[in-house]
């Protein structure tokens, strides 16, 4: 029976590891392969504290969690700068350094022999020495970690993580700071993995470097992938299967080394087979579509909040002004001494031939790239030095020519992510002020519904963004911009590629944005469209503003016509 309990403990540990790994790999899409080093940190923290200082559970676990969280943030540093393959190799290097350190720092870690004699956990005056005694505690922590992961996944924080996985620039463009999200995702994932490490050390009363190698990381990765990337319940299933499966090998009574190797073969083959035949894993990622509970709806009704209007903006005069903007890329001058003034309540167009520097001017105005000289001011205050997400928070939002929707998320979620000032974006609120988060989430759902109704996408709220037609995608882009609550909206070719009928549907939405007091600026090639939608236009060519004025007047300038159709 003790054998069965033991298997239960092992499963619990791997559930903790795979669920926590899934937070970085699955939810955040950060392919860092150093999870075993967090596990190691938790285990060695517990072992060192116990063996050398006589400090036991739960303090030893706490130290491990905090320490591994910090280590997680260190690993996040390269993830801020590089992605893809580089992140993989850097984190593998980190993992190798950790294993090497454990093996060589004899004084601290006991070197290759490890540390023996870790005190068992003492709970309610009894030492948990047998698997049977230990199992309830292990299960308790496994459930706890799963619940923490689940709450994180379903919170606005988790939603922002998934959005970041889809498109980092787009997340910035709706006013969120990807840096903070990455750091926290790694910290949480690392801290949770350390729980497993701490339990492991106290359970087997011994730690050694061979338990925390790259192979261990790959094993946990296999569990995550088998269960389903991005599905936390899947990680539980993956852990159970991959712990049980090799146990069957024991029935064959092979020599232990051969059994070990066969286990390696099984894991390797398993990875290949899953990815070949069911890459989404046994339990594919599900999109928990947020719903407003009836009780909450009632509560909101009681305080008079059932419908949200899209607020009008009380503003007039110049808002966003770029003075003498200049930008070089290497030897190429993309924007040269351009001065562009945007005013509230009007739709301003940037026109000009391909390569005129329109998109660069856009990027300068919204702070996505920095100027070589010149200054951008918003209500007479410089926005130079602000990072893109801070600029959005101050009230200036932009869209992208290539849309950059969060394609695997629902239409509603696309809008929800963009809503500003979400309490649930802060992890502390998610866990310690759940009521506040829940209430705000309900309000935000109503707001998002209102925004969708505003652009005419209310019926599509539960569709995945990649199921939308092209015109609907363009509407969703506008919805996402409106949702940021910004008063200055810059749209990069919001109307290109649309047929005339659809165009007629979308044009009024854009006009309305300006009529309600917002500052709207857009890039457009089609002269007809510009005449219909813009109150004012800047003509750019070769990086310079050649002319400005009402579109009708610009169109009649023979020189500009010649340049445009040249």
């Amino acid at each position: 029976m003790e054998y069965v309990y033991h298997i239960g403990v092992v499963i619990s540990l791997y559930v903790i590891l795979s669920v926590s790994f899934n937070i970085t790999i699955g939810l955040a899409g950060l392919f860092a392969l150093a999870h075993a080093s967090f596990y190691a940190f938790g285990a060695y923290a517990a072992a060192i504290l116990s063996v050398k200082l006589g400090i036991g559970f739960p303090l030893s676990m706490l130290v491990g969690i905090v320490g591994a969280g910090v280590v997680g943030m260190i690993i996040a540093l390269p993830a801020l700068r590089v992605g893809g393959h580089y992140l993989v190799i850097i984190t593998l290097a980190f993992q190798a350094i950790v294993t090497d350190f454990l093996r060589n720092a004899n004084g601290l870690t006991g070197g290759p022999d490890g540390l023996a004699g870790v005190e068992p956990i003492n709970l309610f005056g009894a030492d948990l020495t047998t698997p049977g005694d230990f199992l309830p505690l292990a299960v308790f922590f496994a459930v706890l970690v799963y619940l923490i992961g689940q709450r994180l996944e379903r919170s606005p924080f988790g939603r922002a993580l998934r959005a970041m996985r889809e498109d980092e620039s787009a997340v910035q463009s709706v006013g969120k700071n990807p840096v903070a999200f990455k750091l926290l995702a790694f910290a949480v994932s690392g801290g949770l993995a350390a729980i497993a490490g701490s339990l492991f050390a106290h359970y087997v009363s011994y730690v050694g470097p061979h338990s925390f190698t790259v192979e261990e990381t790959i094993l946990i990765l296999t569990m995550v992938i088998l269960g389903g990337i991005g599905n936390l319940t899947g990680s539980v299933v993956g852990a159970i299967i991959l712990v049980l499966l090799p146990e069957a090998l024991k029935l064959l009574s092979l020599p232990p080394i051969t059994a070990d190797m066969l286990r390696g073969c099984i894991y390797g083959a398993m990875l290949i087979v899953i990815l070949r035949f069911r890459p989404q894993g046994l339990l594919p990622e599900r999109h928990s579509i947020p719903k407003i509970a009836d009780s909450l709806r009632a509560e909101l009704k009681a305080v008079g909040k059932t419908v949200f209007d899209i607020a009008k903006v009380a503003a007039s005069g110049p808002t966003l002004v770029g003075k003498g903007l200049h930008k070089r890329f290497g030897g190429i001058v993309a924007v040269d001494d351009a001065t562009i003034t945007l005013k509230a309540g009007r739709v301003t167009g940037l026109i000009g031939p391909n390569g005129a520097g329109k998109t660069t001017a856009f990027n300068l105005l919204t702070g996505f790239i920095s100027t070589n000289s010149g200054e951008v001011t918003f209500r007479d205050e410089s926005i130079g030095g602000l990072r893109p997400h801070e600029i959005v928070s101050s009230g200036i939002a932009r869209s992208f020519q290539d849309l950059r929707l969060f394609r695997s998320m629902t239409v509603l979620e696309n809008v929800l992510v963009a809503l500003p000032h979400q309490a649930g974006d802060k992890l502390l609120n998610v866990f310690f002020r759940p009521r506040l988060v829940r209430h705000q989430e309900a309000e935000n759902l109503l707001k998002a519904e209102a925004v969708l109704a505003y652009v005419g996408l209310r019926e599509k709220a539960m569709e995945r963004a990649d199921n939308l037609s092209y015109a609907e995608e363009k509407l969703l882009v506008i919805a996402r911009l409106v949702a940021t609550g910004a008063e200055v909206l810059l749209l990069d070719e919001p109307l290109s590629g649309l047929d005339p009928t659809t165009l007629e549907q979308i044009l009024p939405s854009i006009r309305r944005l300006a009529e309600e007091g917002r500052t709207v600026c857009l890039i457009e090639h089609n002269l007809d469209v510009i005449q219909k939608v813009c109150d004012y236009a800047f003509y750019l060519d070769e990086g310079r503003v050649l002319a400005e004025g009402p579109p009708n007047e610009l169109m009649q300038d023979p020189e500009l016509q010649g340049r445009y159709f040249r």
Partner: protein
Amino acid sequence: MELLLPLFLNGVVNGAHYALLAMGFGMIFATTGVVHFAYGPVYAVAAYLTWWSVTVLSLPFLVAMGVGIVGCAVVGMASYVLLYRWFLRNDSPPFIILVVSLGLLMLITNLIGVAFGTNAKTVNDVTYGFYFIGSAVVTGVQLWQVLALVVVGLGLAAFMKWTAYGSYIRAMQDNMLMAKIVGINTERVSLVVFGIGSGISGIAASLILVKEGALPHMGFLAVFYAFLAAVVGGLGSLPGAVAGGLILGLVESLGVWRVSSDWQTTIAFGVLFIVLIWRPTGLWKGY
């Protein structure tokens, strides 16, 4: 200072070994986009095949080396045809292919262990000389390692520059889509690249067999070093791979000058960790 010369020479020799590995690995990655982790165990296959040919079949070493290299190229090509090609055809995300190759790494590594056992395999009847450079001793195998880098490096550079396949490969490294559009049979070229890349690792493997012997897990560190050297030099750049390998070898070796040799790998990885954070695209602009 007396220690410095042998350390330096040792660093160059190990660096040549890493550079050779980086060349093959970088070529496969830059051309096909596959992060071929199983490059490591395929390299180990070459070492074991060479060992088997020498000890069981009693073939002369050079012939056995040929068996190892060809066998390694075949296994590399098979991993493309049987595994990666399907994922590439179905436009799998790069991370999926990377994990597939990790799976293949686990599979082949452990299969080798099951088939040959975990004890080190060595060949004893290959003789080589010792030479003195100043106060330092250099063995014949070490000279071969450097020579292999020079010959393979020049050969590969000539191949890339002057043959039709070389130009196909360069085209694919530059722009896969355009290469397809202009009618290059990219799958056949990929197959050739897997063959050549793996074959190069086979050369390195048979020399390491003579020098240190073969172990089932030898492939993991090998592909790791290959990856690091290729990234440091700039993925896909031939001179970059050579420079990356030599830098890696020298950093690792010269580190020992001041610190205990236990920390050799830590030093190398630590320095690279910092270099990559500082300059993620590598020193040479490749792919």
